[in-house]
């Protein structure tokens, strides 16, 4: 009998399937053209966008809908820049009013220097937005308790950080991320802090359902090249996880037989 291959299905969030487990942001790119090329190269289907005032003094073409077609990509509005639950709720509703969907990447930040989430305010906002029929994908930290509370509140996905937003530090706490994935029934998508391909691969090896990144692509010297790498890395990490890695140990175990050596 051949070895069983654990077949992978799509990433399922709120009943909606996504073939790609890589979600990308649209911020910080040097140009809109580079952004679109990188996003396409990444294979991502869902991309995040921010909600901001229209700049009435500048060109009217700066809105992201002039560059990304909602028919090609699933746009996920975020509540970036919000430091209170009330602000995040306001921004989420504005995002929904654009008429694309009722999904939101909920972020309520607690500290400007680290951009770490205010988990209490995030939970408060999540409860209100879930009651208002949003699909809430909640950015949080690697605290198991916060993740469980967000799931209990009805979030469609829980998104613990790998490390601070834009830091590129990679996965600083794989142990807690693994435990969060073991304990939650909703999708777990690691969001923030991924810097290079090995970070994305290592993250997926923990068994999580997806990875969200922005700066890793936008700030790379060659965002399109890095997007290609990330696409492969997410796939590699996922396949390695599904394949069931070997146990690691601190002493050596020979790979070649001990018997049959010459005298």
């Amino acid at each position: 009998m051949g070895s069983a291959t654990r077949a992978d299905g799509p990433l399922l969030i709120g009943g909606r399937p996504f073939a790609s487990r890589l979600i990308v942001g649209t911020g910080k790119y040097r140009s809109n053209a580079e952004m679109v090329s990188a996003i396409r190269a990444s294979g991502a289907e869902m991309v995040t966008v921010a909600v901001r005032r229209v700049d009435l003094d500048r060109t009217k073409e700066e809105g992201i809908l002039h560059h990304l077609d909602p028919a090609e990509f699933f746009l996920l509005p975020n509540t970036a820049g919000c430091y209170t639950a009330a602000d995040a709720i306001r921004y989420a509703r504005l995002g929904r009013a654009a008429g694309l969907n009722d999904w939101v990447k909920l972020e309520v930040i607690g500290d400007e220097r680290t951009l770490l989430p205010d988990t209490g305010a995030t939970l408060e906002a999540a409860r209100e937005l879930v009651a208002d029929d949003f699909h809430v994908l909640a950015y949080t930290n690697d605290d198991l308790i916060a993740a469980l509370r967000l799931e209990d509140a009805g979030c469609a996905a829980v998104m613990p950080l790998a490390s601070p937003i834009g830091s590129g530090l990679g996965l600083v706490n794989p142990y807690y991320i693994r435990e969060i994935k073991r304990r939650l029934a909703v999708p777990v998508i690691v969001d923030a802090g991924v810097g290079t391909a090995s970070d994305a691969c290592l993250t997926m090896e923990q068994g999580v359902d997806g990875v969200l990144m922005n700066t890793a692509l936008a700030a790379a010297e060659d965002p399109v090249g890095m997007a290609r790498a990330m696409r492969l890395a997410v796939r590699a990490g996922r396949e390695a996880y599904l394949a069931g890695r070997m146990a690691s140990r601190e002493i050596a175990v020979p790979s070649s037989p001990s018997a049959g050596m010459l005298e």
Partner: protein
Amino acid sequence: MTTSDDSGPVTGPGGAAGDGPPAAATIVLNGERRAVEPGLSVAELLHGLGLDPGMVVVERNREILARGDLADTPAEDGDRFELVHFVGGG
């Protein structure tokens, strides 16, 4: 003429009842004071700014306006508007 100032009450030039044409309305739009002609609808306001209503979301005095209501909603003296759209973000 616009000034960056979103503090304090927003009032437009007053006119006594029966004194000729209605005074211009003063609104705050994205944090800046603007004078608008009386009776202007929000849809007309957007059009005057060169904005496609399908590409922006309008909040008037902290309430989101449905796109279908823009033509019927007047920009009144003292109104505070936020016009927002999607931009790049993580």
